[in-house]
């Protein structure tokens, strides 16, 4: 099994290496950064455009460089409305052809971004083998993540066996040696073997009242601690990973496709709740992608029936605690993974943190306030500097006070 696993992973490594080389080869041939382009494309364009020649909402992008020059494309991406309004014949035709659906403007995009996207489109269409890669790629992290943990267990077991063996050998040696010793000085000895003396010693030890009392107390205390620990654990749902009505995979969406968390969890920078995405957000992509999947069909059913999908809440805070995502993510600059764990690797979302008050407080004690570029904190920072050289922690600005979270 072990060797099999090893073989598998080595194969994957080699395969990945090959693919990687293939990538590298293509990258060199391109002007833009296709990897960056892929991210940009998947996050922003994929809901309307196919990199091949399929029409989704807008036209497929295959051969786009043959159709339009770079300058026009940059202008178009930056401000499609402007181009249409300027009376550009091609733009107007395009607009009319696709049902007068306006393309979203990306004013922040420059030549660099457009080139990157074009590089990705080029790559997508020139190397169809690459398209298969995501499937293989998906298997890869699974192999590598399960590999080390299994290996570790095997190693531990082996180490234990080795240690037991060493112990046995040592015992034998001690016994043989002691026999040899008693053999030479047998006249003085009581005639007991080492093992007998050991046993005798242990018996006296065990009959000692103090030892007995101590051990009884030891067990009582251990039992109490275990009970208390158990009680503290009540209501803590760390590791809770309920089955969801739709087997949505964060590993696929956030991990493999690298869709930004914000894309679906739209409230995370605005308010208390990060928001479970509404069905219409799913439909942005799944209006065209994987329509036949039975899981996606559940979304369609929900939309048709105008009944929300009843997701199971994974992270439950008690009602007495107030938590606000915007404070932590927008203001504090805390990364999602810090509390939610590596969501991008979870097939089923699991509660990774304990979400206890101790856990909150602990972080508030350790975390520095994200004061950079925030005028709210300017005065506080300068005040803090006058008293101490330590950095300004959340606890220093009242992060441990009751009514910051309980009201």
């Amino acid at each position, binding site marked *: 099994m072990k060797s099999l696993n090893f073989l598998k992973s080595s194969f994957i490594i080699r395969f990945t290496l090959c693919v990687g080389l293939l990538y590298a080869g293509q990258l060199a041939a391109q002007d833009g950064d296709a990897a960056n382009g892929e991210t940009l494309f998947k996050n922003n364009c994929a809901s309307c455009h196919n990199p091949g020649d399929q029409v989704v909402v807008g036209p497929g992008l295959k051969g786009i460089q043959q159709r339009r020059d770079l300058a026009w494309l940059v202008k178009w991406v930056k401000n499609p409305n402007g181009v249409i309004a300027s009376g550009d014949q091609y733009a107007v035709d395009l607009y009319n052809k696709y049902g007068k659906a306006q393309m979203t403007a990306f004013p922040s995009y420059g030549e660099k971004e457009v080139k990157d996207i074009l590089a990705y489109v080029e790559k997508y269409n020139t190397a169809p083998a690459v398209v298969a890669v995501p499937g293989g790629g998906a298997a890869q992290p699974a192999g590598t993540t399960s590999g080390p943990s299994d290996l570790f267990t095997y190693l531990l077991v082996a180490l234990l066996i080795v240690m037991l063996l060493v112990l046995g050998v040592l015992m034998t040696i001690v016994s043989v040696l002691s026999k040899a010793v008693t053999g030479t000085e047998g006249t003085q000895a009581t005639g007991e073997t080492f093992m007998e003396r050991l046993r005798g010693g242990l018996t006296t030890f065990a009959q000692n009242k103090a030892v007995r009392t101590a051990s009884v107390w030891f067990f009582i205390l251990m039992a109490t601690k275990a009970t208390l620990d158990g009680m503290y654990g009540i209501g803590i749902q760390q590791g809770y990973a309920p089955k969801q009505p739709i087997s949505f995979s964060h590993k696929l969406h956030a991990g493999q496709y690298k869709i930004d968390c914000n894309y679906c969890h739209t409230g995370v920078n605005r308010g208390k709740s990060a928001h479970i995405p509404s069905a219409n957000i799913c439909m942005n992509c799944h209006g065209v992608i994987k329509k036949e999947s039975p899981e996606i069909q559940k979304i369609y059913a929900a939309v048709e029936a105008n009944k929300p999908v009843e997701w199971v809440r994974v992270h439950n805070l008690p009602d007495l605690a107030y938590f606000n995502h915007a404070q932590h993510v927008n203001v504090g600059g805390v990364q999602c993974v810090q509390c939610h764990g590596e969501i991008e690797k979870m097939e089923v979302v699991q509660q990774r943190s304990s979400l206890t008050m101790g856990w909150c407080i602990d972080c508030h004690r350790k975390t520095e306030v994200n004061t950079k570029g925030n005028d709210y904190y300017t*005065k506080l920072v300068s005040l803090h500097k006058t008293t101490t050289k330590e950095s300004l922690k959340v606890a220093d600005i009242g992060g441990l006070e009751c009514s910051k979270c309980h009201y």
Partner: protein
Amino acid sequence: MENQTKRYWKGLEELRNDETFVKNASSEFGNLEKPESTPNNSIVDGLGDLGDRRDFLKVLGFGMAAVSLAACDAPVKNSLPYVNKPTDTFPTIADWYASTYSEGGDYASIMVKTREGRPIKIEGNNQSSINKGGTSARAQASLLGLYDVEKLKGPKKGEADADWDAVDKEIVAQLAAVAARGGAISIVSSTIISPSTKAVIADFTAKYPTTKHITYDANSVWGLIKANADSFGKAVVPSYDFSKAEVIVGLSCDFLATWVSSAESVRQYAQTRKLSSAKGGKRTMSRHYQFETVMSMTGSNADYRVAVKPSQEGAVAVALYNKLTGGRAASLGEQADKMLTKAAADLKAANGASLVVSGSNDPNVQTIVNAINATLGAYGKTINLNAPVYYRQGNDMAMNAFIDEAKAGKVGAVLFYEANPVYDHPRGAELKEALTKTALSISFADRADETASLCKYITPAPHFLECWGDAEPKAGHYSLIQPTISPIYKTRQAQSSLLKWAGASSDYYAYVRNFWKSNMGTGNFEQFWVKCLHDGVYEPAAGISESGASYLGNTAGAISAIGAAKSSALEVVLYEKVGMGTGAMANNPWLQEFPEPITKACWDNYASMSQKTAKDNDLSQGDVIKVEVGGKSVEVPVLIQPGQANETIALAIGYGREKAGKSGNGVGVNVYPMASLKSGYLSFNAGTGTMAKTGEKRDIAQTQTHETVMGRKAVVQEGRLANYKKNTMEGRFLPKIHTSEGLKSPGDITLWNGYQKPNHSWGMVIDLNSCNGCGACVVSCQAENNVQVVGRQEVVNRREMHWIRIDRYYSTDVDDKVEEMGLIDGPRALEIASENPDVVFQPLMCQHCTNAPCETVCPVLATTHSSEGLNQMAYNRCIGTRYCANNCPFKVRRFNWFKYFDNDNFDYHFNNDLGKMVINPDVTVRSRGVIEKCSMCVQRIQEGKLTAKKDRRRPVDGEIITACAQSCPTEAIAFGDMNDPESRISQLLAEEKEGRAFTMLEEINVKPVVSYLVKIRNKDVEKKATEAHAAEAHGGH
């Protein structure tokens, strides 16, 4: 026993060594065969052979253990996202919509806060020039009515549920039949201030030409309208501008609370009462005289108040007129004469900057008042006939005529819209009978109330928060009503119903829009409409020009009609309470538990009378008496009210509902039938009555029973304007403590270290001069902080939960003699409520003491101090010792004696899913056994700070505001960051530091962050000076 030879045996079995004996010898109870179990001896069904007591207990024990173990697993919670999320709405982020509250003459342009699609709070709309961000207690409480589970869930035909299509069909057919035979169709409503609704009624009338629209008000001002028609040819209620009045005389007129346009008056009046201790600050204030029977909220704010009997109402007006014009005035008693002379002199001196108002519904009295105002030249200055207000348009005559017609069987069809005359009209009983003779009767009421339950059909209209609509409270001032939630039940707006029955489209939204398009729209209508909806108001005539008016009234006629005051032995008068109003919102637990500003009583009406009247009749508080007027009697408990005219009994309207709902039914008694109709005009002066002791006792649920401050100047501080002009520290009490180093101020000797407040330092300044005791803050706080209603009995037990209360203290001239009387006699002397005391209102919430006594005694640190100056309360840490409450010098901590939500013993909307929709999701609902108190709306502070942080800036002053401060119609409460030198509170404190600002109980050095500004009265000081002089001569020290 070693030489034992005898053998002892317990029985033959043992002696014989029987097999069964040997087997059982060692077991105490023996393993005896169990008798066959019968199905009946099993305690638990289905336990079969286990049916013995021990087994049962075992099973029970195991079961409980299993259940509690299983309960350790948190229940599965679901998250339901939108299917199609609206673009601009984000769950957990509040949306605000502008709308309008209008009910029984009470009006406010409001902003409605909605969370996840449900309205949870009402605030005033700053854009409205009428209420300018202020609200009343009733406007605040109206929110709870939306979630009243006792409303009708659909149309009704008689007792049976019906569906809209069927009901519409039947009604249309019957209306057509009535119209065809020329029968009268009457629409009976309270005042409608919606111009589009009036247009709808006009459309309905066009379809059914025999339709008549009858408007009546439970608390009518038809006499005023009539008088204005006679005096000026304009049948309107003019707009009054109290802000321009230097001298105000109120004649039985509660213009700050229950009279017309109180929403506007209250703010204008407060403007004239504001003072500033800053250099060159405002040191002038209006002088207010009040002549009235009942101690009203307005009267309690007056500088000079005189108690007069209801029968003298007209005579007072005539006497004032005569004194102004130099005529001979009949004497009304020494005190009244003196005050009338004084008032007349002040009025004259004000040179037109004066205002005399009367709450009387007698056109003769109002004619005299018009004559007085005309003589003084108030028209064009403080009274504007060009900008009438429309809060009350009820026509008493028309209503009377309608009831007569109904009795005669002449009414073919009647439609009741926002009207419940069977309950709130003196002739309700007659109407009740007459309704049986009416072929078609329809009510648009939201519940089967006293009138609706007698109707053939009820086509319920939804709550105003589910409606479209508009309002014109004052000429040229329009506001819109927009729904903030989709209809909860299968209800339909009355306007839609009327339109539908008139054969038009029932889309009232389109109707309002078109109405505005054709009547108000300017330029691009789409833009105009969106702007109006957004702003909530459209005020093309905000600056309407004022002009004088020539008085053409028949003064002499009015004087002779009033005649000489015919005072009788015992007069009964009806009045409207600040909270309950006319009783239309009786099923609102927030209003029922709202303590009336003066009596501090809730959940009841009562016979209030003066100390002297009670003593003369051998009555004490709580004695139930039978009051009889004109053959109608009620049994009510006695409440002793200082300041009330002797030989009068006052009874509040709005109580004694029978079909309002669980919270309103049977609370108090209905006194509307006692109201009289004097030559057709509704009068709350019921006339001569009698009273008799029944021998029963009934506790009145009062939230405050200590009537005076007991001479403690550290609690309430007050002074007089003339002194204040000379010394801004007038009335201030500066305690000193004796130490070994001589006298020191309490702040200088302290055990406390204080707190660093590097970031924010929240604080509050409350101006006792601006606070008129209206109590909008109390209900606002209740709505914002999920404060529970506890019910009448628990209030009697002194367990009310309000986080902010308004302490009302009476003070008398005896006050001046306190020092003279010595410490022992002083407070006792003060407890005797005087004939006509001064009143101070002091809003009191947690003072967030910097040296908080509550914090030091909490054994579990459930209450601690924050670095922003807040005294925090962690409910889940609280174990309910109540040490903090005992150690609080202000008594602002509240204990949850019960779980008040989800508890059917407290049936006040919080025990059903609909009622609980009003809960503010950002505030914990406290459970049994914990202490709670004002948090200074920490949820708003946190939200405001977060908004600022998200924008990468400091919070702007005014951005973060507590619920009480926001809803205050007079801006008496200023909240803000005392660390921000630009904030209003910092500036106020800087100005008033050497002026009126004081903190309560300064001598115990708890250092509250709430400061109060000394109450200044515009009273003359001569009297006091001579008194002090006399005292000096007398006491010789």
